[in-house]
């Protein structure tokens, strides 16, 4: 097991290096730079002055030099400063990461709380009205885009309830009640979308497991239906569900970009998108690397979860 983990961690190094090269290259391929964005609408800055400012910001150095400097900063856990705002990137991330983690965690929890019971209910009442309702909900969740659902939710909350989440982010420690109000709707929007795929997967795997011999044996032994479904069937049905949930993490992070914008939350999604628009190379690169590292780690954790869910699985 330990060897397996170490091997996976070592394999992650070339993956991350490749990611760093790709993101570094892509940012340089895009035309324009942070300085152009910063000077936007001014129209007063001459080409000579722009060149000087670019050199001051290190944008005039050869690409390989820029890459190595950035890589060293990353390894030494000091990603440097934002070109656009001059704010230390670590400080910007320190403010935005907790927002995204909170949003993603709440969304994931809400998604699972909806998806697993509804999926099981759909499976145990297959082709009955409850199943149809569950399937309709799942298909809706898959087909409604986040931006549409988010806009709809905030518009109708204002129209019907004359209430929307209070604007102006407050942290969980600063004002828990205000924070909860701010996160509940966006998490519900994200969670609803996440729950759809999980719900469908739970339904189909539970249906499959319910047809297995050992489940029939459990029924034959006269066990209570709840125990058969939740203790014997569900645990074995969860492996593909965990895979789906693990795979959705990328979708979840992408979804936060839109939802954070609609609900005015200062998370990583907004930070990254704005950094891309303003060609803030160090911020984009650092954020992408952070996401890549998170995904690699979470995928490893998902793989390790299999062994916990199914004792027959061993890693060597």
């Amino acid at each position, binding site marked *: 097991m330990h060897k397996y983990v170490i091997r996976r961690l070592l394999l992650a190094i070339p993956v991350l290096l490749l990611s760093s090269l790709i993101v570094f290259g892509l940012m340089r391929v895009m035309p324009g730079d942070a300085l152009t964005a*910063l000077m936007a*609408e001014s129209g007063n800055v001459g080409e000579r*002055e*722009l060149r000087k400012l670019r050199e001051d910001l290190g944008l005039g150095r050869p690409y390989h030099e820029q890459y190595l400097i950035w890589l060293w900063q990353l390894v030494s856990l000091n990603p440097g400063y934002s070109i656009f*705002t*001059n704010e230390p990137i670590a400080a910007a991330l320190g403010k935005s990461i907790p927002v995204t983690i909170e949003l993603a965690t709440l969304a994931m929890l809400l998604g699972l709380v909806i998806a697993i019971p509804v999926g099981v209910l759909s499976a145990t009442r297959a082709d009955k009205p409850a199943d149809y309702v569950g399937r309709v909900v799942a298909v809706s969740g898959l087909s409604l885009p986040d931006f549409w659902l988010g806009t709809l939710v905030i*518009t109708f909350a204002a129209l019907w309830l004359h209430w929307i989440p209070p604007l102006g982010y407050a942290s969980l420690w600063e004002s828990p009640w205000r924070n909860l109000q701010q996160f509940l709707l966006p998490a519900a929007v994200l969670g609803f979308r996440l729950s759809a795929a999980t719900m469908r997967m739970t339904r189909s795997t539970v249906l499959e497991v319910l047809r297995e011999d050992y489940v029939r044996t459990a029924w034959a032994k006269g066990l209570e239906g709840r125990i058969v479904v939740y203790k014997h069937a569900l645990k074995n049905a969860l492996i593909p569900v965990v895979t789906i949930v693990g795979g959705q993490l990328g979708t979840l992070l992408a979804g936060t970009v839109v939802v954070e914008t609609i609900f005015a939350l200062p998370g990583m999604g907004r930070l990254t998108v704005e950094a891309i628009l303003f060609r803030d190379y160090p911020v984009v690169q650092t954020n992408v690397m952070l996401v890549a590292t998170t995904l690699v780690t979470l995928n490893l954790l998902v793989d390790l979860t299999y062994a916990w869910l199914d004792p027959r699985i061993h890693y060597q």
Partner: protein
Amino acid sequence: MPTDRPVALRQRVNRREFLRRAGWGGAGMGVLIVGAGRARLSAQPVSPYPDWIPPSSKPPKPGGVLTRASSWDPPVLDPRLTQSIGLFQFAALTSNRLVRYAFADEASGTNDLTLKGDLAESWQSSPDHRVWTFKLRQGVKWHNVPPLNGRELVAADVKHCFEAYAKEGVQSFTFREIEGMETPDKHTLRVHLQSPNVLFPQNLAEPITVIFAREVLEEDGDLKKRLIGTGPYLLKEHTRKVRVVLARNPDYFDKGRPYVDEYTILSTPDAATRLAAFRTGQSDILWLASLGEVETVRKTNPAAVVQEYKNVLAPFGLALAQDKPPFNDVRVRRAISMAVDRQKQVDTLFEGHGIPGWGVPYIYYQDKMPTLAQLGPWWQHRPSEAKKLLAEAGHANGFETTLFYYEYFPQMTSQVQLVQQDLKRNLNINVKITKLDYTTYYGRYVESKWDGMAWGFQSGHAVGLDERTYQYMHSKSTKNFFRVNDPLIDELTTKLRQTPDRGEQRTIARKIVDREYDQVLRMWMPYDNGFLVFQPHVRNMAALALRRTDGYGASAIARLWLDK
């Protein structure tokens, strides 16, 4: 045999015939649609909302908190490095300028261009308009925070600030025309210009020319972290992408003002969320682009106060590489201009509430807003004449060209496509459109590294006459993005800078505009008007013609009060 012919006809409707008939059908529908549009021309919806709201006659009530959900975020706090509305939506409240335009509660109407003293009490020029002397107010104090600690503002502070602006950054163009400065005493600043400019005080009244504290620049090396000024509000909090909080400055020189204790700007990038915030009372001010949106808001908030904001200029137009063929031929420019149906754009894109487009604010040369007909023959939609003119220029079969743009607002893509269709249909000019992201667009546009066409712009922060004439049209100006190179324009814009009489200025401005229209030097496109919507308790908030209260005209918020 009566049944044979229809059968035979049906048999002959092959793919080609079907497409031909479908084409005629489509054309017929097009005529109907255009016809419907034309019918609407004579019955354009009239806005029921006033374009001017007079100041309240009641005595102002001090106190309260004003909140606004804003789409803009300041990129940096350093006014030398950006002209972004994100910064100047509040920098004009933390800081002052030497001079300013009249506020709504002092103005006679939206077009009142009277200059008032801000930090300067009075100002005058030498007979040759090369030396300007500003007498500063006495007893103006910097904000009572370290390192200024409420010390008095002196002329040397302004001198240092102007020198820093000239040295580097986005404002250098305005301040580099300063040859030298002297401070004969604590409260007098004498500015020597390189060439005469009667409009220099107007340039200093632009919202971006705020006076910053030299101590901050000396201590921090830049102005990115702290914004300390002499203005009516202190910057209490700036949390990026969350909020900007301004607190009333109790030591402000204009005693009794500002009235509102705190002004909070909430970063809200999504339009639907800003609308919802206004509806639920979380935001006191809202900008809407269309009458339809206003009517929707009024259904839930019937007491909301609405001001129609009529634009005095269009910020966007078709920029042509007029230093190169084929656009260096005036006949080609005129033909293109006549091939474009501007009225159709106003009707279809802006619900009939738009201006046909011009670059110099009309208030500088006439009292009433020009009509499309007044813009001259080359600005009318005359496709057949356009075709003849293009043929005379040697392009009877049209030509191919490119156009790049950035979608500043949702209708812009449709607007660009309408121009593309007009040029193809009327002149057989094939325009290949490229939509770019902002940074790419901006970089390519301002660095003039393009051929063909661009969807050009002029920036929105500065509206002074000098800015809109000399700075944007003189061939030697760095802001001449439309690549105007016309000796008469150069002569007139220079002459304007040497003409102190307002009446003569209007005459010269008129000549500049006439020349621009005649030579189609900048091909302005229609632009929408908009609406400022306020909660019913907000008083003295009306926007003047040149600036919106929620944007570059934010300094007006110092005069606003809440009737709660």
